[in-house]
């Protein structure tokens, strides 16, 4: 889903965006998600980015990544490493991966397909990505690079643009109420008096989405509501 979002952005309003294929190349052209480079006519390679260059790029701050999170707290501390105590986890997940380095070096957003109180918790079991409270303890050089832009879930869009950088409700998706979001969140959200509804795709965007995801992989990751 984040990959589709990035490719949609490039196909519509941000044509200068460099998009990687998740392996070692920058994709030149609008490659459908799930397709390998070389399988779509007119879509080639515009750059080589092996894993070592990935770290160069991200520590240099020239990236905006969209990650997943198994847990997240009100300050944006995120966890993809393990559930339960680290010494002997109840569920071992991936490990911290690049989360610590991503969040201190460049803008990070999150896509969470299931918005529940199990994900949005009071305290995360392992901080694999830094939230605003932890980043505030660091040198201004680090704080200046730390930015959590958006958290997109199946219910709503959130950001951290509140007074104390607590999670703030930006919009709720069509058919979802603010109360639904509050119920599914394990901490207090900053909520404006009037929360708008997330806008749907325009016709042009819907067309681009259909071209970028002809196999409908997005529905597998996020089943249609009520389905």
């Amino acid at each position: 889903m984040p990959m589709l979002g990035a490719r949609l952005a490039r196909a519509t309003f941000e044509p200068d965006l460099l998009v990687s294929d998740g392996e070692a190349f920058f994709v030149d052209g609008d490659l459908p998600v799930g397709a390998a480079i070389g399988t779509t006519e007119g879509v080639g390679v515009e750059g080589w980015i092996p894993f070592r260059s990935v770290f160069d790029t991200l520590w240099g701050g020239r990236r905006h990544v969209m990650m997943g999170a198994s847990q997240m707290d009100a300050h944006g501390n995120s966890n993809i490493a393990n559930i339960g105590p680290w010494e002997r986890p109840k569920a071992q997940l991936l490990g911290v991966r690049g989360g610590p380095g991503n969040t201190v070096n460049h803008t990070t957003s999150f896509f969470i397909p299931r918005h529940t109180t199990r994900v949005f918790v009071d305290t995360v079991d392992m901080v694999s990505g830094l939230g605003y409270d932890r980043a505030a303890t660091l040198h201004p050089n680090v704080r200046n690079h730390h930015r959590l832009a958006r958290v997109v879930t199946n219910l709503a869009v959130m950001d951290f643009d509140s007074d104390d950088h607590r999670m703030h409700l930006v919009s709720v998706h069509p058919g979802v109420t603010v109360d639904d979001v509050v119920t599914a969140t394990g901490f207090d959200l900053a909520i404006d008096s009037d929360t708008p509804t997330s806008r749907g795709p325009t016709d042009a965007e819907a067309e681009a989405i259909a071209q970028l995801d002809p196999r409908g992989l997005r529905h597998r990751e996020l089943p249609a509501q009520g389905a």
Partner: protein
Amino acid sequence: MSTNKIITADAAVATLESGMTVGIGGWGSRRKPMALVRALLRTDITDLTVVSYGGPDVGLLCAAGKVRRLIYGFVSLDSIALEPHFRAARQAGTIAEPVEYDEGMLQWALYAGSLRLPFLPTRAGLASGVMDVNPNLRTVRSPYDDAEDLLAVPAIRLDAAFVHLNRSDERGNATFTGPDLYFDDLFLNACDPGRRFLSCERIVPTADLTEGTSFHTMRINRSMVDGVIEAPRGAHFTSCEPDYRAMKRSRRPTWLPPAIPMRGRNFPNSSCLATRPATSQPWTRGGTSSEHPRPIRFRRRHVQLRWRRCRTGRRGGRGVCRSLPWRRRDLCLGHGCHADVGCPTGPSHVRTRPAGE
């Protein structure tokens, strides 16, 4: 002509001792030196410190109880996000000293080791859970006007390093013809001379190293390598682009020992691991056929076996379980562990004919 460094995988791992620090190249499920890892699984060596961008290598070594200390940023099979053996071992608490780093910290630790520096500074990891669970990590203050505190990632030096590349000559000059070198050069450079082992798909004359590819791929030279192992499909079942892709089944990887189902209440269950010593299981065999001349005995008579001529194999034939669909029978390994082919009834029904038969 300088030294010929060709040895077998078993001879390579025989130089290791319990308690050593071993670095394993590749990334997740990509170009892992599985022939060397399997050879290591067949030994009695234990108590290892393993450093890896982890995939099935880490999982299998954990399942075999060989890992005392594990330094990792992640352990994943990529398309199958969670590595089941690693998961089971962590949840059972059988890895005595897990050391969890940010991926970039691990690169820095190996780079510092390869430059013989005590540490390298970075921002990655600062104030994160990595600092919470590794209390021995220290910060260092910039001596310049900014006075910024940075994480000092301690260097890792290795006693042994395993990597797998596409081509090598007999002296250890090697090329990667796939998309990425990963950090294989760092693993070799961070290792003390003596046990830096490179397995490869093909040993070729030096002049042929860049045949069909560019000289930019010559990233490993013979000063970085002590032993060369010819292991066709030696990264299997991880990928070794462009020679072959990773072999993964959507439902359940067949290299899992039969006792550990991927789903259900028995998984993850550490007792499965405890009751089956991993080194005696057929899934630890594999790699080149010379590594396991003993045929794997099959137990159930109702499974019909047939010999089929190996399509690509140069080293003897193979048994194919008839219950395999034809398209999978074509996934000929030629040299090794047929448990990896994906026999739906499990690896014990597939047997290997020894080389030269």
